[in-house]
């Protein structure tokens, strides 16, 4: 088991390096293939009025003349060890882990990410609780009453839920619940959990529900399919043959068996979500990682985009690692192999 964990950790680290290379390539190589020169790249950082000389010096200082592997190496080094950014007039210190420095906002990326991560985390955790409870619950009931009115109605709703985009459900939710009936705040406010947990929940409830609606639909369908399968397993028949109450047959034997694929997909979804719920944060004006990424993209602020992308990749990898390790907890057959 320990060897398994170590093996998985090494694989996760290797994967992270690979992701960083790919991400770096996308942001630093693709513009060149599109015809950008070191000078045009540097133009972004000095403004349009700069002389050719200034542009050249800036490009040199930023390492744009170096070959790709040198640029990647320098970048990776600053991530691990930290580094200094030469702003001409001043030298800015960027301690490790230095995920980059925005020359536009003149701020290091990492502290910004740390600032915004709690918002995205709060959004993801609350939504996840709602969608797991709702989705799994509806899925189980649907499977047990297969073909009933409840089953057909909830699966139709689930299909609608999967099909409706966040920006639509979000705006509709805002229109009615925030502006018309004034039950919730229209977004844009965030109270840290530790300051006031009730305010925290109240501020986030509408985004949670919006986000959970989309996911619970998927989880309901997934749970239903899994339950339909496990409830026909021989071991469920055995559980009934023992004289076990139907409720326990469903939960202890049926649902337990159907949980593995749900856990897998949950790891992926949650990992992806804490890397930034782009649409939800945008619709509800929440200052999370997703909105940070959008700001980076709209302002052509590459270090920001690169930083968020890497952090999101890290979250997905870690979430998957946790899920893989949880497999051993859920399924004893994995443990002994």
């Amino acid at each position: 088991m320990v060897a398994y964990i170590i093996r998985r950790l090494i694989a996760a680290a290797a994967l992270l390096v690979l992701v960083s290379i790919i991400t770096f390539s996308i942001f630093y190589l693709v513009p060149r293939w599109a015809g950008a020169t070191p000078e045009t790249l540097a133009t972004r950082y000095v403004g349009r009025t700069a002389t050719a000389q200034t542009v050249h010096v800036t490009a040199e200082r930023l390492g744009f003349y170096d070959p790709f592997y040198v640029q990647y190496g320098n970048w990776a080094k600053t991530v691990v060890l930290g580094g200094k950014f030469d702003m001409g007039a001043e030298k800015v210190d960027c301690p490790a882990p230095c995920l980059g420095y925005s020359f536009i906002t003149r701020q290091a990326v990492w502290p910004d990410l740390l600032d915004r991560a709690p918002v995205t985390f709060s959004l993801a955790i609350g939504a996840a609780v709602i969608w797991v409870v709702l989705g799994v619950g509806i899925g189980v009931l649907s499977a047990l009453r297969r073909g009933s009115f409840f089953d057909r109605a909830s699966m139709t709703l689930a299909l609608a839920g999967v099909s409706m985009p966040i920006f639509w459900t979000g705006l509709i939710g805002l229109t009615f619940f925030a502006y018309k009936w004034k039950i919730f705040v229209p977004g844009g406010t965030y109270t840290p959990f530790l300051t006031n947990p009730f305010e925290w929940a109240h501020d986030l409830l509408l985004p949670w529900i919006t986000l959970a609606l989309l996911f619970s639909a998927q989880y309901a369908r997934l749970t239903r399919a899994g339950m339909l399968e496990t409830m026909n397993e021989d071991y469920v028949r055995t559980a009934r043959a023992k004289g076990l109450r139907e409720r326990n047959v469903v939960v202890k034997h049926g649902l337990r068996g159907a949980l593995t694929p749900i856990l897998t997909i949950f790891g992926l979804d949650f990992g992806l979500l804490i890397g930034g719920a782009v649409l939800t944060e945008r619709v509800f004006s929440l200052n999370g990682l997703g909105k940070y990424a959008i700001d980076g993209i709209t302002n052509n602020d590459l270090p920001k985009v690169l930083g968020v992308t890497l952090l999101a990749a890290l979250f997905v990898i870690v979430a998957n690692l946790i899920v893989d390790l949880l497999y051993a907890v859920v399924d004893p057959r994995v443990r002994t192999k």
Partner: protein
Amino acid sequence: MTLTDQHRPAPSPRSGAFLEVRDLRVHFPTDDGLVKSVDGLSFGVDRGKTLGIVGESGSGKSVTSMSIMGLHKPGTANISGEILLDGKDLLSCSREEVRRMRGKRMAMIFQDPLSAMHPYYTVGNQIIEAYKIHNDVSTKQARAHAIEMLDRVGIPEPHRRVDAYPHQYSGGMRQRAMIAMALSCDPDLLIADEPTTALDVTVQAQILDLIRDLQKEFNSAVIIITHDLGVVAELADDILVMYAGRAVEYGTAEHIFNEPEHPYTWGLLGSMPRFDRDRSERLVPIKGTPPSLINVPPGCPFHPRCRFEKNTDGLSQRERPELIDNGQGHLVACHMPQSQRQQIWRDEIQPLL
């Protein structure tokens, strides 16, 4: 089938037995038509006795056992007739009443112990669960009982093995553990549905021995369901041969093996390897396939596959033969006269086996 035929009571041979099934009919309405899985079946088993139910796949053996256990999904099956366990009709009991009896008064062993045990719980856990449903004991007491049961079914080092998962057991051990689980509440009736089909031949004999020994110890009524006459030859006191949802022959094991009178039983015997006789050229399979239970052939359901069908002058194509006592408590459903059946058995069938 005519209405009068539906309501004609099937003979009930062993009246007053511990488990008595009378005119059991289990029909499943499906989109393709009514599946008559069991269509007028009667039999009985006493405590300490073993009944073997034999037949091909789809003859209604397992459906019968599921009906006794009350394991059909509510609303899927139309069940009629009577299933009397110690005089109490299970079919008129509420679902909750039947649930309370399941596992305690009647228990079941399934075919494939790997898929019949939950892969995520330890063997001990699953036995403890079974025991605690019907006994108000602490988990510690239940665990001690589980270890005792594992020991009784011949699992080595039960103290250690109790915490192992089903996949860590061998096939034979798993079936032993299933038996331990089924017997944990000391049931009066044990149904073994193809208990050895998924096992190696060498392990099969051990499991059958185990069932026989435990039956003596627990004095329970046992039903063994199998397609393999060899299995019931070892164990059964009585044998019921099923075809297309009905009994075609029902008698003591001696009668069925030594003087069978139904052509289908002859076919089963012919397709069974035997070690107590000289080896014949090859095993003789029964030609054709089991009938669809939606469109059961008119008349005798076995007539399209029967070599002796011509002996009945077409009667077997028109009329379903009743299960009739031949005078020795041996029931046969065949249109051929008894003397002719006995003669065919002596002259044509027995010498070839």
